[in-house]
């Protein structure tokens, strides 16, 4: 609930001409500053239906606070202060806190009072004492209001399971009035819905990581976050209400919000493998899960718990067999064994599931697989996942034997797989780190498939990763050379509407080379040595075409050299005929 102060400051009798001026200033007691400059005269549209107040406000000249603003900033309580001055002498100070309706009444009373003073043209002694009584009365009322506020706090709305549909950064670091639409464009089957996945691309220093940090601070409601000091920075959240309707809510972190965010959020930082001193505490199953601080290895605990449960159950099933097997006929024994096998088939071991549904798909590329047979007596025997090579030789300490790329996949996929977050916001900063291109190609689909209802943000420098996105899912940010600020490079014809048909770039249809050049803005397709070699091949080709050779031997030599070099530089023949 917001709180604002209106200074009815001042009711002045200018003494000589017996005229009154009612000046209104408005300030807020929290940080929802609309303006603090000078002595403003405000016309409060909210009050315009109240005749007497409208009359009173006929002196006002500017509209500064609108109904929408009151509602936007949740200004349900106001403090009205007034200095009543008669012939330069302060005869009364009114300081009253109330709801809008209460303030309305008080303003009306003040207006009447000022009219009375004006009509009587005498110093209103009586009024002063009445005012004092009034102040006392209001004190009592104030306490009641406070009680009411406490009750209202319990009515704070909790928002969860949302997706981000718009980010607006008014002025943070290099961002100035930076706005990103995170919804599907017109003509898309999900038109208007928040994007399922977002890819942030841009030169170093343009602010991809900053955007990620801002999203994180918003969701954490980190009001102390330095990056969010500017109060008008907002994000729009789309969530589904109880009637299954999508509602868009604008959320300002440093303002009083009558909503509280309880969103599942997972952050995978770029350097998650190398950050030392991570907290050793268990991973929460919901809420904020930040692997900048937490160790991803800890998600093994969830799987381990399942393994232990499974083993207990398996033991029970085995004992059943043993117990019955002693007195069973061969037919019965077959039946019991079949039943046990059926149980095994229906109840896959959690490690087998982890291997089949998640990790082996990638580990195979590293000549590895998850060791699904785990023998253990005690919990401490299964401290962590075991990996073996394709020749079924178990590897030693994972941290020592696994490559950075393997660990990267393991430490990101396992939390997503084991936590199975629903409707979360999942952030990856540079997911391509340490990964070979063929793995990068699959990583976006892989991660998103592990939590299909979540909204994913990937900040990347990889053209291969960028190619996994629809063009509207890509937010390209770059410096505007004119303003020195960051802007989003829009990929659709801005003279036309944001419609799927008006996009002129689509990384899904481009080669990796073309993505580097057309999307990442690389001007050259190789280094200077490549150009030199290409020129050499072009010269050889020209010579062959001209056919001026001193001997057949020279011709053969040039032809041989041309074939060798054209292969080496992957010379792009314009058409097959030339080749």
């Amino acid at each position, binding site marked *: 609930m917001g709180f604002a102060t209106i200074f009815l400051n001042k009711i002045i009798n200018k003494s000589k001409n017996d005229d009154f001026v009612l000046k209104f200033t408005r300030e807020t007691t929290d940080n929802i500053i609309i303006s603090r400059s000078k002595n403003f005269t405000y016309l409060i549209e909210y009050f315009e239906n109240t005749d007497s107040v409208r009359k009173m406000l006929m002196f006002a000249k500017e509209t500064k606070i609108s109904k929408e603003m009151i509602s936007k900033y949740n200004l349900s309580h106001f403090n009205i202060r007034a200095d009543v001055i008669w012939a330069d002498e302060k005869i009364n100070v009114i300081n009253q806190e109330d709801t809008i309706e209460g303030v309305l009444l008080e303003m009306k009373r003040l207006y009447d009072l000022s009219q009375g003073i004006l009509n009587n043209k005498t110093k209103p002694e009586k009024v002063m004492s009445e005012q004092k009584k009034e102040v006392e009365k209001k004190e009592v009322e104030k306490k009641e209001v406070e009680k009411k506020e406490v009750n209202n706090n319990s009515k704070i709305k909790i928002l969860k399971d949302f997706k981000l549909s718009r980010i607006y950064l008014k002025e943070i670091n290099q961002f100035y009035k930076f706005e990103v639409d995170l919804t599907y464009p017109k003509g898309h089957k999900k038109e208007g819905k928040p994007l399922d996945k977002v890819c942030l691309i841009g030169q170093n220093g343009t602010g991809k990581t900053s955007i990620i940090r801002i999203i994180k601070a918003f969701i954490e409601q980190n009001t102390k976050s330095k990056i969010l000091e500017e109060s008008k920075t907002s994000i729009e959240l789309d969530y589904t209400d109880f009637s299954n309707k999508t509602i868009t809510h604008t959320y300002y972190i440093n303002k009083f919000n009558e909503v509280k965010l309880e969103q599942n959020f997972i952050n995978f930082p770029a350097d998650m493998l190398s950050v030392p001193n991570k907290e050793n505490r268990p991973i929460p199953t919901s809420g904020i899960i930040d692997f900048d601080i937490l160790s991803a290895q800890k998600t093994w605990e969830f799987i381990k718990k399942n393994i232990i449960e499974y083993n207990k159950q398996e033991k029970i099933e085995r004992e059943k067999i043993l117990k019955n097997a002693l007195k069973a006929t061969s037919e019965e024994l077959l039946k019991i064994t079949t039943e046990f096998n059926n149980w095994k088939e229906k109840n896959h071991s959690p490690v087998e599931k982890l291997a089949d549904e998640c990790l082996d798909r990638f580990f195979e590329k590293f000549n590895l697989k998850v060791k699904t047979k785990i023998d253990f007596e005690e919990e401490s025997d299964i401290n962590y996942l075991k990996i073996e090579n394709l020749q079924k030789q178990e590897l030693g300490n994972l941290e020592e034997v696994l490559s950075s790329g393997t660990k990267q996949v393991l430490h990101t996929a396992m939390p997503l797989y084991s936590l199975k977050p629903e409707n979360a916001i999942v952030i990856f900063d540079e997911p391509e780190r340490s990964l070979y291109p063929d793995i990068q190609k699959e990583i976006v689909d892989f991660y998103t498939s592990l939590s299909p209802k979540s909204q994913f943000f990937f900040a990347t420098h990889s053209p291969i990763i960028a190619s996994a996105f629809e063009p509207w899912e890509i937010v390209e940010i770059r410096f505007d*050379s004119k303003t020195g600020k960051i802007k989003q490079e829009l990929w659709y014809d801005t003279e036309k509407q944001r419609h799927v048909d008006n996009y002129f770039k689509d990384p899904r249809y481009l080669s990796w080379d073309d993505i580097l*050049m057309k999307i990442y803005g690389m*001007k*050259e*397709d190789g280094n*200077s040595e490549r*150009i*030199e070699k*290409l*020129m050499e091949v*072009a*010269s050889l*080709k*020209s*010579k062959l075409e*001209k056919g*001026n050779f001193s001997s057949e031997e020279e011709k053969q030599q040039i032809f041989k050299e041309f074939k060798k070099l054209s292969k080496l530089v992957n*010379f*792009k*023949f*314009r058409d097959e005929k*030339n080749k």
Partner: protein
Amino acid sequence: MKKINKTKILSTVYKKWENKLEEHPKYNNSKVRKEIYIDIATNLLNIQGGLCAYTEIFLCNKNIVDDNNWKAGRFKKQNITIKDICKGGGLDHFDASIKKEKAWLWDNFFFVDTDVNNKKSDKEVDSILKPDTKDYDEYKLLEYNIDEHIFIANTGLDIQTQKRVNNMILTLGINQVKNVRKEYLEEKILDIELKYKTWEQTSVFQFLTAFEMCKITMNNEKI
């Protein structure tokens, strides 16, 4: 790289000043730069048709620097920077070795793309590919490979001359923009190949020499 005729002097105030110079002020002399940089740059852009002297990549709309924008030997708009006129371009001293002695020598100036300028830097040059010299003839010295859209030395020249030309193609960064050139010209050529337009109906605002050479090559292929 088109032949450039630098005899058209619009910046007469600068040129008179340069003619009288006994000793050139330093190139980083901010007062001199402020006075004459824009005049030299816009005069060159006028002559070069708004294109980079070496690569012929588009730098500025030629209307911005046409003859109407000059008055009494000076470019009319003076309180501007070069960024207000063109995107990514600057003055290049063709022969960097004389920059120190003759920093403001008209004959040594060309207006070029910033990336090309940066890469060229202070590299040694051979005047065989100085585009304003009397003997410079792009059609005699150069050939265009349409597969990769790169310039090479005319393979009909003697080996030694080919080597000199190829070295200068690299120094001047003429093939540094090959991908932009390829994308731009291939679109035009495709229209012609699909008979949507003829060579004569097709106009280009940049890479004029490459376009002309493509036209010659492809017409020859037909024959």
